[in-house]
């Protein structure tokens, strides 16, 4: 199996008769990969499978060539920030990170240094010596993240890592993920916050009912479904009527709707590439186009089309 990818090969997991995930086949490259799906879609199960916290009922998993059933190797490569909001009793933030780091066998002095660095990265220096039990939700989220990144892993698995974070910390955390991805590491995130997923992900994995519904770059996924769900473009121009009639001349355009005064034309097409070429042609032939905005070329729209709107949260 590949040494630079997280690979799930036909993986299924059942909890008795309840389906966790079913026949999941994925190959996750370095970069930021977001798992998106409604509650119960199998995102956490998938993360737990990748990190060996649960075992697959069927199929094989490899994380950079390591089987998750070998924690002694896996967790030298992987850091996992779970969604479980519980901690061992009586430990301060720094003691918590330090104590579990010691399990890796590093010397105490090195663990202290690494702990301090991780705590600094998540901005918890002032609260480091306070008991975790006294932390706010956002601080608990950050200390979990600190534990996941403390040993400088090549793979970071993060279950809803942005939950409970204030906007400033949220943007710093996202910057950290981007930095990790830029360094060629794997960052796998599950999130409900679709606009953030859209903003930071190199690829998305859409899940529903334990199945992978779609995966890949968001634009690639969007174009794959344009036959059933024509892509929408908002075109701002000075001659909206002419623009609408010219658009209708294209056989792949299924709808061209004039919006209110000065708001432009909304065009739905089954072939975005050909439509964009046609727009270039129209612009060259004298139609003054001020702007072209893809309206549903994002995770939120893809999510709604593939999974259903009622579960999309933000």
């Amino acid at each position, binding site marked *: 199996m590949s040494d630079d990818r997280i690979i799930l090969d036909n993986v299924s997991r059942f909890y008795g008769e309840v389906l966790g995930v079913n026949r999941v086949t994925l190959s996750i490259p370095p970069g930021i990969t977001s798992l998106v799906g409604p509650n119960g879609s199998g995102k956490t199960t998938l993360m737990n499978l990748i990190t060996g916290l649960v075992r697959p009922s069927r199929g094989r998993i490899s994380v950079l060539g390591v089987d998750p059933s070998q924690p002694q190797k896996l967790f030298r490569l992987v850091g996992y920030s779970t969604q479980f909001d*519980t901690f061992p009793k009586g430990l301060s933030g720094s003691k918590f990170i330090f104590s579990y780091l010691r399990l890796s066998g590093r010397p105490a002095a090195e663990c202290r240094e690494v702990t301090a660095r991780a705590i600094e990265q998540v901005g918890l220096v002032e609260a480091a010596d306070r008991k975790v039990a006294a932390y706010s939700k956002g601080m608990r989220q950050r200390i979990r993240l600190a534990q996941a990144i403390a040993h400088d892993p090549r793979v970071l698995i993060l279950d809803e890592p942005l939950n409970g974070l204030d906007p400033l910390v949220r943007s710093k955390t996202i910057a950290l993920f981007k930095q990790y991805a830029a360094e060629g590491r794997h960052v796998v995130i599950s999130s409900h916050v679709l606009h953030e997923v859209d903003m930071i992900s190199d690829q998305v994995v859409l899940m529903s009912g334990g199945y992978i519904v779609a995966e890949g770059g968001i634009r690639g996924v969007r174009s794959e479904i344009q036959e059933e769900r024509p892509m929408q473009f908002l075109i701002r121009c000075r001659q909206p009527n002419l623009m609408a009639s010219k658009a209708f001349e294209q056989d792949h355009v299924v709808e061209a709707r004039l919006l209110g005064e000065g708001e432009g034309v909304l065009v739905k097409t089954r072939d975005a590439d050909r439509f964009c070429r046609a727009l270039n042609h129209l612009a060259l032939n004298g139609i003054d186009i001020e702007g072209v905005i893809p309206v549903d070329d994002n995770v939120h729209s893809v999510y709604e089309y593939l999974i259903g709107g009622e579960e999309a949260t933000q």
Partner: protein
Amino acid sequence: MIRLWCIQVLAIIRLEMKKTFLSRRGLWIYLLAFAPVLLFMGQSISTAHRRDELQRIASEHPISSEDLSTLRTGINRDEVTQKLGEPYYQWRGRHGQSEQAHCKYTDGTVDVYLFFRDGKLAGIDRREFDNLPLFSQIFAGVFQSYYLRLAVFFGCVGIFINLFRGEMLDKSLHFYLLTPVRREVLLAGKYAAGLLATIVIFTSSTALQWLALLWQFDDATVAAFLTTTGWSQFSSYLVVTALACVGYGSVFVAVGLLFRNPVVPTAVILLWEGVNPFLPAALKKVSMIYYLQSLCPLTAAPANDVPGFVHLLIAPVQPATRPMAVISIVLLTLVVLVVAARLSRRMEINYSTE
């Protein structure tokens, strides 16, 4: 590799120490462990007080020990009075057609209780207050019937089952499983932490019980006892206590790892250990209590009025030899730990079903 495992085991022990020693959930274990210390202390104080009282009575009504020891049932009341004088306590009454009387004499160390029916001596009960070997028999009885069977057993239940179950319930076990530690090493670390805690708690209780028992005697009596059989008995009790923690610990760490509800397996094990004396010889050997009792330095001698089955509970009929008992406990422990270690590889985190 072994060095790394040792470092990891030590790190796990450090993490577990506070939980095993100072957990609020485990305070009852201290009560269980140290209850016999209170018992022996109370008994010691009461005995010392009683001995002082008897010595005072003996100085007021001097009686020779020889005269007391020559009393035989069947002699009449007047003969007793002639020999020993007036008792320091007496009571007379009728029960149906018979006339009954009780009286007490003492030489300062033995309290002799005489029971007369129709003027004849019908029963003699001697209570010795200066007989250390006799008290060590009492200690043996308490140690084998209560301390091993209940205190250490349930103490190990409380500490070892919580090593995994407690963390499952607290939803914090996953932090261990997210570290580069083999599951087998995790099991070994947790077992070692539990062992350290139970051995410290229960052997210190054994030592304190012993101290409380000896406290009532004068230095010369204690020194004489220790130099003859005392030290050997004392060290044996410490070893038996530690081995009980080793054996029961392995069983209950496995129970905590494998069973979502440990009450049923614990009850089954308690029952199995309880009925051990009544089992055929081959089955007897598949238990911890059989080997532990075989290692005890004294066969507890319960009072004559104690039912036969209690005799069986306190002392094995055919004890194993000491080396065989130690080897068997260690082997049973290793087998249980190896099985638990293999099963620990399949351990999963699924808090939602807890």
